[in-house]
């Protein structure tokens, strides 16, 4: 059976076309002003990549903050539900999923069979989401893609006091004036967000193994800081930003079967 999952994130729309549990095609499109249009475009590209016609797709399920705006889906599932479902398929040994997207961070305890045991979401605050690293990269005048690598060259840990992205920006500008080495600042930025994500995850109780998903999982600097904080290895995926869409496509298959 062929299904599709549409993850309408705050920044990007991700679409995955799934055939019998295998990813056949995927696409990522900037959400821009019209999430619905972006979703349609992402689906078109994912189908093209999969060389599959739209008429062969049995069911489409949407997830993500903008899931109500996706006009092409048959049903919707929460981000938390989609992550739990994806994990049962991709890595059933995982018991805790940490999902850090552009505007939201989540920690989800899962049972390995696709069900959610407990979860916590950060409180609509940029300091606990990808938006934080983006704002800090701008303050450092470093492209966001390079921030992770840069922090790997750090030789010392320096603390950041601000808990707010706006205040942290001023703090970073202050550090730049003091000629603090950029790699150390990059590390401080990742340590700060990892610290907040870890605190949030502790609220749901951290049980191993722990998976890290969402776009921010591509940032090696953040991954390192989070590993150090949690003092354990993390389960990572080659396309961490597509995990939610895979979960949605799996839910589509589950619900289309009957």
């Amino acid at each position, binding site marked *: 059976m062929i299904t599709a999952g549409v993850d309408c994130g705050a920044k990007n729309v991700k679409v995955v076309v799934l055939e019998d549990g295998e990813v056949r095609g995927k696409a990522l499109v900037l959400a821009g002003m019209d999430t619905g249009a972006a979703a349609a475009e992402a689906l078109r590209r994912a189908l093209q990549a999969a060389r599959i016609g739209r008429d062969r797709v049995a069911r489409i399920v949407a997830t993500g903050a903008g899931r109500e705006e996706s006009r092409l889906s048959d049903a919707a599932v929460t981000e938390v539900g989609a992550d739990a479902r994806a994990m049962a398929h991709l890595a059933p040994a995982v018991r805790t999923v940490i999902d850090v997207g552009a505007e939201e961070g989540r920690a989800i305890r899962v049972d390995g069979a696709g069900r959610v045991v407990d979860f916590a979401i950060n*409180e609509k*605050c940029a300091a606990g989401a990808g938006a934080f690293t983006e704002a800090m990269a701008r303050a450092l005048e470093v492209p966001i893609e390079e921030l992770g690598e840069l922090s790997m060259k750090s030789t010392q840990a320096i603390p950041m*006091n601000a*808990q*707010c992205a706006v205040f942290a920006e001023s703090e970073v500008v202050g550090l730049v004036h003091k000629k603090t080495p950029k790699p150390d600042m990059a590390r401080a930025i990742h340590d700060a967000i990892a610290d907040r994500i870890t605190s949030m995850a502790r*609220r749901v*109780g951290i049980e191993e193994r722990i998976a890290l998903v969402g776009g921010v999982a591509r940032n090696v600097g953040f991954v390192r800081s989070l590993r150090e904080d949690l003092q354990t290895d993390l389960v990572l995926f080659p396309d961490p930003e597509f995990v939610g869409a895979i979960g949605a496509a799996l839910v589509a298959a589950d619900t289309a079967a009957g």
Partner: protein
Amino acid sequence: MQANYGYKDGAGEFFITIDTEKCDGCGDCVPACPQHVLVMIENEFDLDAEKELAAVSALHTKKIKYSCGPCKPAAGYAIEDLPCVRACAAGAITHSW
């Protein structure tokens, strides 16, 4: 004086309140807190005061929800059983969450 330290955000209200009329400056709460959240400060509110006051350290006011996390019900504590609350014989310390 009711001194409220903490913040309110999308997730709720997170304040530790010190009733400075009750606080006798004994300092017993300081070592009782496993997270080193509490400190003794000079009473800057009253120039004639001779006793110090308990307060939340400025290092923790902005992240008090997380700092106090290990002692909260989620971690197995009853609210009246918090180490700082128990340590204060005068009953000057309360938590909003």
